[in-house]
């Protein structure tokens, strides 16, 4: 049985980046203790019933003893309300949820993160290195503008790996998309690519891996009402028909498990 908890957690650190990106670090030892990279938490943005549902956020990184962070962009009602909070405020979290990345003994690994999809990459990289599961993983990050990924690239570099970046507006690194950077990977190596980001980006990464014969794991996003495998709302199509559920069977899938229409 998966171990998961419903906890009230205090925000011990609140950071703001670019115009609309927020990082909250919570003290949630029970959740942090069992969390795996690629898993997520369901967060209640405040009291009352408008907005009603919890919002899903991937676990961005662990720090100190029992602290875990989420990194989110302000989009709609829920994230807007969350962004008003600060250090000392308490939030209701449920997690860790879902099935994360599988990287035991994976050989050459490449992490490809785009936009907010970069969030789970830090935790994945840190665990890979800690568990010595992959030798010198490569990291490719893409975002619209430098301010959305410079601090993230720096923090991953601080773990001792090489990080290559691309920005849509060319304000940092390669002027283009993160998929362009994949050409820099030596073709013959048996890469396993771990990717998360906007759907079109992931579709391109999966296509590239297919052509190059590399294995690929994707972390998907769908609308979620529960995140607890109860509502069956988070369906994604399987190539052979029928559906898998992102909160239960994912959010991380082997690329071939899901249909990429």
């Amino acid at each position: 049985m998966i171990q998961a908890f419903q906890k009230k957690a205090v925000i011990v650190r609140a950071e703001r980046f670019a115009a609309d990106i927020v990082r909250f670090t919570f003290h949630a030892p029970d959740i942090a203790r069992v969390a795996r990279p690629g898993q997520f938490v369901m967060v209640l943005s405040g009291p009352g019933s408008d907005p009603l549902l919890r919002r899903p956020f991937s676990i961005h990184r662990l720090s100190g003893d029992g602290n875990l962070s989420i990194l989110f962009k302000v989009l709609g009602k829920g994230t807007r309300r969350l962004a008003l909070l600060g250090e000392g405020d308490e939030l209701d979290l449920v997690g860790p949820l879902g099935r994360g990345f599988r990287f035991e003994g994976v050989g050459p690994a490449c992490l490809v993160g785009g936009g907010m999809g970069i969030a789970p990459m830090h935790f994945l990289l840190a665990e890979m290195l800690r568990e010595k599961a992959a030798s010198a993983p490569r990291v490719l990050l893409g975002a619209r503008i430098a301010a959305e990924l410079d601090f993230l690239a720096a923090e991953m570099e601080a773990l001792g790996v090489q990080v290559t970046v691309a920005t849509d507006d060319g304000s940092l690194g390669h002027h283009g998309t993160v998929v362009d950077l994949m050409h820099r990977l030596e073709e013959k190596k048996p890469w396993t690519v771990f990717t998360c980001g906007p759907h079109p980006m992931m579709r391109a990464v999966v296509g590239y891996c297919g052509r190059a014969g590399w294995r690929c794991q994707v972390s998907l996003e769908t609308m979620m009402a529960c995140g607890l495998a109860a509502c069956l709302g988070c369906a994604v199509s399987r190539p052979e028909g029928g559906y898998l559920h992102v909160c239960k069977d994912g959010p991380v899938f082997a690329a071939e498990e899901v249909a990429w229409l």
Partner: protein
Amino acid sequence: MAVTKPDLQVHIGSLALKNPVLTASGTFGYGEEFAPFVDLARLGGIVVKGISLAPRPGNPPPRVVETACGMLNAIGLENVGVERFIAEKLPFLRTLATPVVVNILGDSLDDYRQLAEQLAGIDGVAALEVNISCPNVKKGGVAFGTVPEMARAVTAAVKQVASQPVIVKLSPNVTDITEIARAVEDGGADAVSLINTLLGMAIDARSRRPRLANVVGGLSGPAVKPVALRMVWQTARAVSIPVVGIGGIATAEDAAEFLLAGATAIQVGTANFVNPAATTDIVAGLERYCREQNVSSVREVIGGLRV
């Protein structure tokens, strides 16, 4: 003499429940999913996801969307089917000290009868909840629950073969819910539960597309509570069989309001997504409520509305 520990036991026909708090079908999976968050033994009852004869894949996504104090769902009754339910889901449920109610759904009268037959006498199935909000494909897709005669027929068909108490779950999308409730009572139902979801829709003005792939879906959550409460009050006065109240219940206060309106028990649905421990919080809250009201048993609250 202050009330020490209020007695929360209630009866739905021959089904004895240790308290009036059940889970609503489709919002608690098959029970196991909530084990990390809820002491399942403290629940009055667990109503599992709607079961059909054959497994159903459900509708294409998107299947859920948030609305003001509510949500729309068009899951499409995805479920494992009665065989796999009995083989794979029931074993865990049998280990619990909490009655399990199996919600059944079908496209025709015969579907419902066969389901009741296959579940008859199955250990671990304490009662059946018949979801008559489904379209009757033989009658141009008109929902069983909107035509009194069809509601009576499906109830009678299930009662003929069921070995467990039969609760019939009513659709709120009707002109007069009491007409359907009486028809179902005539058909031999042991109890009625209401409400199922209100038919609704959401549109994304920017893309000009419906937010649900299925275009329409079922509305649930706090937004529907006033309608659900009114229908429970009307129904409890129209029939003599027990009424199970469902619709926007999230707190013990909400639950008490439905009991006062005449419900013998209540089901918690959408609130489980917002607060996974909603059900057990409500059980504890009902005990507090009884103490505050100075009643020794929750039964004294049932139908206690002062009109």
